[in-house]
């Protein structure tokens, strides 16, 4: 089995190397058959990588410990789904996942756009350039097919990874990270070929949206995993590896908005190229952070010694993209100017500046400890207050812009029109803010502003649908005629739910921690928590305890059972939080504990009451729905674009 896996990887490496070298030569010398041959090599690399992946999956399923990778990440007792998830649980497997997704995406994207040969001629070698790095790593530096004499049992899996969310969280993130390679390859291909028209944007529009959606869903799943599994009661800790996924998502969000300005006004060509390159390079940076171990992280289980290789590749890609954009500046400059600072495109521009500023301040927060250590030998850390400050500074105005944007017309808007369109949302926001102040929500200005602006945004979105429905003659007609716009509004509504959930569960949460003996009680936010009893639990690969806590208050009675699992001396132990979802507040009653004294049964109980938190997860579902609406193909639009790009074809009619 292992030789087959190695051979498949070598074949894939050879194919992507050919796609890079032969493809570049063909594009340079304008050789049609050689360019097609390079394109075929890139497409053939996908089944070869898929075969290597199948070999690893079979080895994992059979728990074949002659594969060092399988022995290092699984054990006989590990349930099968988690055993299979070890594919992306370690360094070699995750590199293979990168390559298989990359070659899969590249094959499909190249195949779908095969008729645009001039653009494809240079896009194929760019894909080859990215793929050759991962192929090289897998063949010569970090192979998942290294063999050894089989030990009696494997080392097992880190307990925090043994969670259903971990079956989906890493693949989703990888689908997002790698997905950003598609717009990058097409953008660089466009620059290399001199095709700086909108062809590359049309080709990658849905790919970008899909990658962005995967990245968003991956982060939400990761947040849910952190919340339910790590046991500290939060869902986002500004951990460097979490930030690593958040930064490209922010930049991709900026790109999804700014690319509309290029499509509608022919502006921002340079800016869009910069955003595409930045998003992709941040995704490589994310891989570097996750795998290098240069920074302490809750993801430290994923650290490995290949960081230097990834850093080298990152530097190469940054230099490549910056040099290419610089060299092609004359082709990217346009004469079209912004007509007014009060227009839809201007609000998109402000949103872009805020999104990129937020991404860059997060990047500085991640880099500062590394640079401080490397240059001054000082150990520094950037903690929550830094990130919270910039999230409030840039995030709250961004929230407001989400409500302003839909109300402002393209090109320019007069004060009279603005007064008319803003009247209802503005009034709703003022009334909401007043009521919230009256109810005492001014204890947190960030929370108060988030709630008030959320009311403004929701009102503006509802108004858009109501007015649009009247004009279009029905909600389905309205949405189907402009899926991107109305899908986007649904996503905006999801972001509002995130904002309300985050504000409620952080600005207005209550935390309490107490030592309790059986029979003792504690008071938290109007609830009485009584420690009833303690008992042991046993699973396939762990032993542990659970305490029974009964909770009464606010007219409710429920129980929670927090505890801990012990997976043995090698793997360690994990907190097992117990969470009650309160339908009344849409929030959670979150409990964890640790055994303080086994003889007396004394435990340290931590309780967090987090209002409105579940809106974050509901928002996640709405986010996916909105993204699907925006992505859904529009036959009329596709026919129009096909006519535009058919060489020598007649122009489409009005």
């Amino acid at each position: 089995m292992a030789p087959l896996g190695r051979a498949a990887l070598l074949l894939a490496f050879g194919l992507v190397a050919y796609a890079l070298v032969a493809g570049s030569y063909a594009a340079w010398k304008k050789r049609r058959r050689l360019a097609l041959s390079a394109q075929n090599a890139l497409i053939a690399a996908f089944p070869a990588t898929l075969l290597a992946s199948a070999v690893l999956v079979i080895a994992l399923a059979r728990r074949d410990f002659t594969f060092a990778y399988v022995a290092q990440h699984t054990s006989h007792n590990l349930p099968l789904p988690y055993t299979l998830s070890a594919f992306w649980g370690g360094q070699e497997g995750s590199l293979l996942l990168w390559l298989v997704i990359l070659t899969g995406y590249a094959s499909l994207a190249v195949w779908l756009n095969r008729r645009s040969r001039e653009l494809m001629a240079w896009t194929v070698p760019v894909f080859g350039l990215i793929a050759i790095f991962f192929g090289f790593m897998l063949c010569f530096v970090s192979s998942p097919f290294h063999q050894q004499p089989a030990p009696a049992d494997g080392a097992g899996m880190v307990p925090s990874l043994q969670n259903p969310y971990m079956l989906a969280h890493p693949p989703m993130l990888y689908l997002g990270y790698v997905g950003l390679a598609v717009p990058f390859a097409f953008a660089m291909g466009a620059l290399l070929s001199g095709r700086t028209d909108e062809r590359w944007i049309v080709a990658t529009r849905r790919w970008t949206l899909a990658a962005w959606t995967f990245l968003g869903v991956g982060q939400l799943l990761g947040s849910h995993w952190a919340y339910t599994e790590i046991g500290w009661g939060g869902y986002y800790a500004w951990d460097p590896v979490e930030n690593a996924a958040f930064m490209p998502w922010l930049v991709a969000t900026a790109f999804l908005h700014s690319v509309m300005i290029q499509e509608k006004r022919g502006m921002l060509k340079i800016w869009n190229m910069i955003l595409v390159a930045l998003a992709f390079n941040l995704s490589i940076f994310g891989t570097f952070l996750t795998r290098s171990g240069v920074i302490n992280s809750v993801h430290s289980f994923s650290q490995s010694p290949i960081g230097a290789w990834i850093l080298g590749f990152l530097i190469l890609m940054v230099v490549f993209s910056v040099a290419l954009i610089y060299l092609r500046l004359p082709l990217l400059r346009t004469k079209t100017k912004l007509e007014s600072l009060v227009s839809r495109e201007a609000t998109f521009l402000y949103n872009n500046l805020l999104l990129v500023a937020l991404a860059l301040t997060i990047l500085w927060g991640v880099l500062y400890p590394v640079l401080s250590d490397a240059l001054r030998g000082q150990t520094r850390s950037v903690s929550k207050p830094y990130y919270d400050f910039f999230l409030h500074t840039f995030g709250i105005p961004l929230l407001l812009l989400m409500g302003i944007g839909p109300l402002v017309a393209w090109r320019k808007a007069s004060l009279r029109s603005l007064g008319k369109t803003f009247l209802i949302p503005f009034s709703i926001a003022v009334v909401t803010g007043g009521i919230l102040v009256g109810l005492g929500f001014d204890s947190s200005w960030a929370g108060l502003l988030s709630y008030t602006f959320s009311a403004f945004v929701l009102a503006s979105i509802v108004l858009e649908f109501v007015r649009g429905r009247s004009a279009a003659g029905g909600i389905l007609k309205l949405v189907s005629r402009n899926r991107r716009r109305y899908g986007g509004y649904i996503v905006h509504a999801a972001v509002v739910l995130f904002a309300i959930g985050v504000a409620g569960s952080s600005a207005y949460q209550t935390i309490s921690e107490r030592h309790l003996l059986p029979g003792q009680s504690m008071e938290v936010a109007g609830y009485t928590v009584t420690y009833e009893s303690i008992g042991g639990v046993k699973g396939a690969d762990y032993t542990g305890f659970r305490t029974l806590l009964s909770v009464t208050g606010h007219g409710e009675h429920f129980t929670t059972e927090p505890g801990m699992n012990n997976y043995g001396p090698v793997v360690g132990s994990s907190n097992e939080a117990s969470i009650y979802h309160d339908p009344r507040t849409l929030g959670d009653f979150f409990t964890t504990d640790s055994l303080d004294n086994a003889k007396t049964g004394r435990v340290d109980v931590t309780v967090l009451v987090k209002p409105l938190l579940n809106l974050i997860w509901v928002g996640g579902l709405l986010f996916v729905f909105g993204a699907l609406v925006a992505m859904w193909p529009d036959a009329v639009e596709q026919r129009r674009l096909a006519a535009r790009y058919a060489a020598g074809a007649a122009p489409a009619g009005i």
Partner: protein
Amino acid sequence: MEWGLALAAAIAVVAVVFVARPFLREPAPASDRLDELAPEERQRLSLAEERDRALDALKELEFDHRTGKVSDDDYRAQVGPLRRRAADALRALEAGEQTPREHVTVSDEPAST
């Protein structure tokens, strides 16, 4: 593991044939030149993009006017120039088709060449 290597070799052969396919299908082509957009075609694309932008902008303007986002005065001020832009782009496209080698510059958008 010999079967594994044999399978790998078979897959490699299939891959090589697939990669060589363009040369096998056309051993002696009339032209091996990679398709490249002529300057006229680039100009046509630029005009087609300009036309689509102008038509999109007109549609947006009509819709925003109907939903009350654009006042009557703003609508009247914007609709004329947008219609002229769309008409100019259409005329330039038609002229380009009739005289494909003629260099047509109607748009305010520079050609991408």
